[in-house]
């Protein structure tokens, strides 16, 4: 069941009505409803993997209780490592086994030894990277004494499986989400309206921006050898907006949906393409994953304290692991590596925390210096996305060499140029709205809040109209579902 599907448009109001009208008097009933709805939502993808989700939930719930219940440090360590081992084991088997088997065989073939690796023909359970990281953060937090084990199995299961975040995040923390699940929730008008508004903006990002950009990005990336350098640049730009519209659109729908049920999820995006350096970009892009790696990998490794060599090592580890988290392909590792290289000068000159606030705060336009920095950061990001999107390293390199060719300054040419012009206009509209709303949680949060209701509603209908006018006819899955 996709967020941008008719099925979800039916599913959501039904759960909403049951939640606020039938189970509203009883928190336990509300949580059971959320859990049932979440399992149904997940089963719509593939019911067989529901058992994997349940097992993962049960494992972390049980090991959490065990860790809390023992005084002996050795026993605590045992349960901790058991959970880590099984969680990462599942992730390793489903997501990375074939990659390692193939890479190993390829490495041997370079040495002249030919082997036929045993690969598994299994599909990747949707959302496994997300719910595994949920569980891991919970187990690590208990081990570190940051939270106490949750005794109520239903509450814990809702924390892991809450349907808005189940398949593509945001990656929640027990310290943030569990207390909300355990607290009685009452209907809040402004929260619900805000939720609907964020869902609308998420749908716009996904349906209008991402899906329309995807059409051209796919065409250009899939036939990159046929196109001029300028067309390849345009293809990379289309993918840049596709991935942002797709993933941040998903996050907006997830956050908006959760807010309809009185639950606040972690913000996942904060206008990353207006960043003035790469450090700022990573504070604004997939925030829940970046902070997860910061808290559970970077800081335990020593973070940015200690010797320069250690800081550099930690930076490379976190970016490479982050790249690898996205998928079992060398392209993601190079993408991570490239971002580490971008980040390194900032780290070494202690400028990585220079731009903490949103650009041009309380001003309409950025300063020329900020503007230049935004363009530079954006350009570097676009370059890195080429590796993220390419089929393999060879493809990425040939794509890049295609860009830096003599026809870089020619007029771009590809099938559907006319349609591409309307997509470019939509992107410009999108950038303008994002710029106007950059000081808020999401772009249209406050837009129109000071004008009369008919005018504000007209703006929302305009967004609905653009969705209706530019909706691609096939429902397109979200990119991050594969991770």
């Amino acid at each position, binding site marked *: 069941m996709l967020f941008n599907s008719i099925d979800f448009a039916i599913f959501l109001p039904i759960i909403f009505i049951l939640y*606020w009208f039938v189970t509203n008097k009883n928190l336990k009933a509300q949580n059971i409803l959320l859990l049932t709805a979440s399992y149904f939502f997940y089963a719509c993808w593939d019911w067989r993997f529901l058992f994997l989700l349940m097992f993962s939930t049960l494992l972390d719930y049980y090991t959490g209780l065990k860790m809390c219940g023992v005084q002996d440090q050795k026993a605590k360590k045992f349960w901790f490592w058991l959970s880590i081992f099984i969680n990462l084991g599942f992730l390793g088997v489903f997501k990375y086994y074939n990659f390692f088997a193939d890479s190993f065989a390829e490495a041997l073939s370079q040495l002249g030894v030919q082997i036929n690796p045993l690969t598994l023909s299994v599909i990747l359970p949707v959302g496994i990277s997300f719910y595994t990281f949920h569980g891991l953060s919970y187990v690590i937090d208990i081990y570190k004494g940051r939270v106490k084990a949750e005794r109520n199995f239903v509450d814990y299961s809702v924390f892991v499986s809450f349907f808005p975040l189940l398949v593509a995040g945001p990656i929640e923390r027990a310290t943030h989400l569990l207390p909300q699940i355990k607290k009685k929730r009452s*209907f809040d*008008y402004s929260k*619900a*309206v805000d939720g609907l508004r964020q869902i609308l903006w998420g749908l716009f990002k996904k349906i209008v921006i991402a899906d329309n950009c995807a059409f051209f990005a796919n065409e250009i990336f899939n036939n990159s050898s046929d196109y001029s350098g300028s067309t390849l640049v345009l293809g990379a730009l289309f993918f840049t907006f596709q991935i942002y519209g797709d993933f941040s659109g998903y996050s907006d729908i997830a956050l908006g949906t959760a807010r309809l049920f009185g639950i606040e999820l972690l913000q996942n995006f904060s206008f990353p393409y207006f960043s003035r350096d790469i450090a700022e970009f990573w504070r604004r892009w997939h925030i829940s994953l970046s902070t997860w790696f910061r808290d559970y990998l970077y800081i335990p490794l020593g973070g940015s304290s200690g010797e320069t060599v250690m800081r550099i090592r930690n930076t490379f580890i976190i970016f490479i692991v982050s790249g690898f988290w996205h998928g079992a392909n060398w392209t993601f590792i190079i993408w991570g590596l490239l971002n580490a290289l971008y980040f390194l000068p900032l780290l070494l000159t202690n400028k990585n925390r220079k731009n903490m606030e949103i650009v041009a705060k309380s001003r309409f336009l950025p300063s020329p210096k900020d503007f230049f920095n935004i363009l530079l950061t954006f350009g570097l990001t676009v370059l890195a996305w080429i590796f993220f999107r390419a089929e393999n390293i060879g493809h990425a390199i040939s794509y890049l060499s295609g860009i830096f060719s003599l026809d870089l300054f020619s007029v771009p040419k590809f099938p559907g140029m*006319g*349609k591409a*012009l*309307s997509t470019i*206009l939509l992107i410009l509209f999108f950038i303008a709205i994002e710029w106007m709303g950059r000081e808020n949680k999401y772009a249209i949060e406050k837009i129109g809040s000071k004008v009369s209701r*008919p005018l504000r*509603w*007209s703006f*929302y*209908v*305009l967004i*609905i*109209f653009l969705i*209706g*006018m*530019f*909706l691609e*006819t096939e429902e397109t899955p979200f990119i991050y579902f594969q991770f």
Partner: protein
Amino acid sequence: MKQFAKNIVLFIVFTCIAYPILISISGYLLPQKLSPNINYRIGSYGHMYTRLNEAKNFKGELDVLFLGSSHSYRGFDTRNFNDLKTFNLGSSAQTPIQTNALLDRYLDKLNPKMIVYEVYPNTFTSDGVESSLDIIANDKNDLNSLEMAFEINHIKVYNTLIYGFFRDAFELNKSFSEPIKKGEDTYIPGGFVQRNITYFKHIDYPEKDEWKLNEEQIKVFESIVKRIKDKKIKLMLVYAPITSSYYKSHTNNAYFDKFITSHHAEYYNFNTMLTLNDSLHFYDSNHLNQNGVREFNKKLLELIDLNKK
């Protein structure tokens, strides 16, 4: 919560008014590239506008009504059926959903004694969007159009229908007139479209394919057969000739024949009954040229005569 529910209802009402206004304005003012999900092309292809105008002005009763896809309006030449009073209500890529909508509008008006319904497997595999847009743009829209749109359930059909209602309401098509001759095509009164004679360069289809019939189209097709039978109108189902190479490139032709015959109506698959030459009798992979039409209609007329007896 009360306030929330009230505002939701108000917003839905507001959207129901504002959205059609925006669609109408953009359909009227913007080029197709900037309004991709409105596809209103009056008089676009296959002379549908002229055909429906003729149907609207028809008086009396028909001996034979032809229905189906472009194989119908390019395959059943109404001049080839001697003294039988015939009309061709075929339309481009007409799927059972559109056939049903056209029957809703024109069956009583045309009042045929017999219906020859051209069944092309491709139309059973289609979502029916293309043909719906053709009908919306070339006919006056009514509740049947809305029903058809719900059955197709496609944003392009909804938007185009809204724009169609707008054009109908303001009579924007009043001054439109479709030329009888358009490019290679000439409209023949009675609904047939004649293509200037050209020959098809035979090609082989190396990849085998399967017809995958759409459940919704099957359901509607069954209701059409039942409806015609209930009205006691004679029904003949016809699979019009396509090139033999194209026909043979599909592996489950027998399955399609079996599916059609299971509806207990007279069925003729002309791909197995007629021996036509791919190059001499077709102008593309699945449309007969005028020589092919003549051969096809001759055989069909024999069957109709036989059926009358």
